[in-house]
């Protein structure tokens, strides 16, 4: 039988993590005009911070000698598996700490980064941030403390002690969705506030905003603190979900995936970003079905998966350059939805 529930949990987990990145990117790029091609830098930093805290700290508190059994060795992994199933309070406590630390450290990193980065002019900020992501990846590759190129393993999922995969997955999904909701609410509040209007004015013409007395660098720094912090949290969620990290997980392509999400959904609205994340993560999950054409095609059918993704991206953007959020639905669907909403309210 097809496990629809399991499928939905796994897909929505990915969706929630990527949607956090997409919503923050829409606040940075679509709304505030900070072209961030270095999203993966903050995502990766958060993931590594989460990995370090949830392994080293957990082992150290539990009395394991992390020098003899670091978390990137089999001994460390075995110890972590035992601890994570036997000591729920400790696992949850350390996980909560890792979320907080990730938010603060990546947030501060983003805040501090704005000052040198902003010097290069708005057109070049994107690529400069991309370089930051690559530099960080280069650093992870060469840090033995985090397993170097081999990465780290055994990062405990905080609900693994529940013992039932479906239940622990569901709890983790709820947690991720809660953080996504928090990110959305914060973004929405900012958009509705005077700060939101200032941000839009900065996006449309930062020099004009500057001339009108707005402290553009400072405002951008504040926004960048917030969005970087949430991206870091998404990274920690990802690390604990996958239970392993390695430098190859945080390549620039991840950033571009998130960009594709916000542009396809509609970059000027967090809802658009969520729609983009929803669609792209689902397409990635659905398309493996193509592989069942194995017997009929003279080449690997799964090669068609990225071709379809590319086609969808291209066609959607030619048809709806402002994103799907600007889509006008067929009349009958619109009236049906309006009817439903009216009934519900």
């Amino acid at each position, binding site marked *: *039988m*097809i*496990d*629809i529930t*399991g*499928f*939905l949990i*796994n897909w929505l987990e990915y969706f929630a993590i990527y949607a956090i990145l997409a919503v923050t990117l829409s606040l940075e790029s679509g709304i505030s005009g900070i072209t961030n091609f270095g999203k993966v830098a903050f995502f990766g930093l958060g993931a590594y911070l989460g990995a370090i805290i949830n392994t080293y700290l957990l082992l150290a508190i539990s009395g394991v000698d992390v020098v003899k059994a670091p978390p*990137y*060795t*089999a001994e460390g*992994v*075995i110890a972590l*598996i035992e601890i994570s199933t036997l000591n729920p309070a400790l696992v949850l406590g350390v996980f909560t700490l890792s979320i907080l630390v990730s938010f603060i450290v990546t947030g501060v990193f983003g805040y501090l980064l704005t000052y040198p980065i902003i010097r290069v002019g708005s057109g070049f900020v994107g690529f400069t941030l991309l370089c930051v992501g690559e530099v960080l990846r280069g650093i992870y*590759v060469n840090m033995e403390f985090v397993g*170097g*190129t*081999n*990465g780290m*393993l055994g990062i405990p*999922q905080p609900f*693994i002690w529940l013992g039932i*995969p479906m239940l*622990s997955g569901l709890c983790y999904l709820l947690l991720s969705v809660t953080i996504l909701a928090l990110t959305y609410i914060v973004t929405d509040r900012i958009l509705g506030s005077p700060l939101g209007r200032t941000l839009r004015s900065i996006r449309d013409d930062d020099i004009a905003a500057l001339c009108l007395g707005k402290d553009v660098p400072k405002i951008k720094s504040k926004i960048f603190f917030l969005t970087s912090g949430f991206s870091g949290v998404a990274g920690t969620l990802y690390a604990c979900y*996958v*239970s*392993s990290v*390695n430098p*190859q*997980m945080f390549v620039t392509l991840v950033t571009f995936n998130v960009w594709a999400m916000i542009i396809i959904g509609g970059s000027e*609205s967090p*809802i*658009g970003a*969520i*729609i983009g994340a*929803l*669609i792209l993560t*689902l397409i990635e*999950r*659905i398309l*493996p*079905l193509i*592989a*069942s*054409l*194995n017997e009929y095609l003279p080449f*690997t059918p*799964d*090669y068609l998966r*990225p071709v379809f993704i590319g086609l969808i991206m291209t066609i959607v953007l030619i048809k709806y350059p402002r994103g*799907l*959020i*600007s*889509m*006008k*639905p067929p*009349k009958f*669907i*619109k009236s049906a*939805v309006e009817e439903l909403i009216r009934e519900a309210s």
Partner: protein
Amino acid sequence: MPPIAGKRLLALIFATLVIGLIIGYSTGYYVGGLGTPQTGGVSERTYTLGVTFALSGAVSSVCVQWEPVVRMAIDDLNNLAKSMGLNIVFKPHILDDGGTADGALKNVQTLYATGVRIVIGPALSSQVKAVKAFSDSNKLIIIAPCSNSPALAIRGDYIFRTQPSALGESKALAALAVQEGLKSVVSFHLNDEFCNVFAQSFKKFFEESGGTVLYDLVYQSGQADYGSDVASLASWVAKLNPDAVFYCGYATDGANVLTHAADEPTLRGVRWLTVEGFYGASEVLTHKVVDFARAVKMIGIRPVPITNPLYDEFVEKLKKYGAAPTLCSENVYDAVMIAGLAVLRAGGSSDPDVLRRALIEAAKTYYGPGGWGLFDENGDRLQASFRLWTMAFVNGTYQYVDIGHITDSNIVIEKKL
């Protein structure tokens, strides 16, 4: 008509997608035969084995050669089931993970959701690490054909590996180096778990045998070219004057490195030792590289037992599927066969614990192209004998040729280099 509000659109899209998802999967289930086990016809059952390989990306050159191996193994399994009078048909569901950890996890999750309970792959240790938590918590059996990371040698989990541990192979290669009179070596390898493990264990055993690894030069994967790394290697060889270079890399980077090395007079003046990383790769077999291999008396090692007619049969049969053996291809075949035999032994059961036990038992009695299937307590294959190989011009073509073997106590080089 004004655009509809974002929140309503989101609700609409979400509802459409979920309905589409259910319809799509149901269609896929019936059309593609993805479910496992599944009843078809009167009493025939289809059992799908999941496969996730890096069919694109940095190691795709190796992994695309595994696809025909999987088809061959599936055909053999089906013939076996037929000959036993069993009404079970095996089918592969092959997905491309691009060599990424994220891709492997998504594929494994998707395969699991479609009812697959045994997955062959992923290829790289970093990918196996990414799927381990999912595999363990959902009791999904993973048979990794080419992972050798010591960090994954964990007792009682659901990860099995048909690639023998690098320790035995490195020890044998160190013994070979000593027998060949090599006292000092410069190590040059890809910064990847597969090669790092080989380099570290070779250093350990070689130094225990009285040799010295003078310098360990590591190059990073994912680059377009490695010419400057070869230049650095030449500098170290010129400075330290070692007896040999120990090299580990895969097909694509291997072809690049060896093509550049062939132009370096300094590097032509020392012996080269290697493992199976680029064995079988056709892009390496150029006049320049084969000539270089002859000049440096290159010897490689690979974990295939010497007295195994099944391997030679495997190579011959594989030609009919339009492929040649490459790195780990015999392990891929064995992985599929052991998985299939486990399913037969378990009577087509989908119970993960029954399947796991059946897998361990099936492996105990399985002997394939890669040797005994027997797993150790960590689910890793045991192997004690190895073949030695080089590249040469034979019968008018450039080929990989076996030149000797290593067993527990013997190192035999049958052909002169």
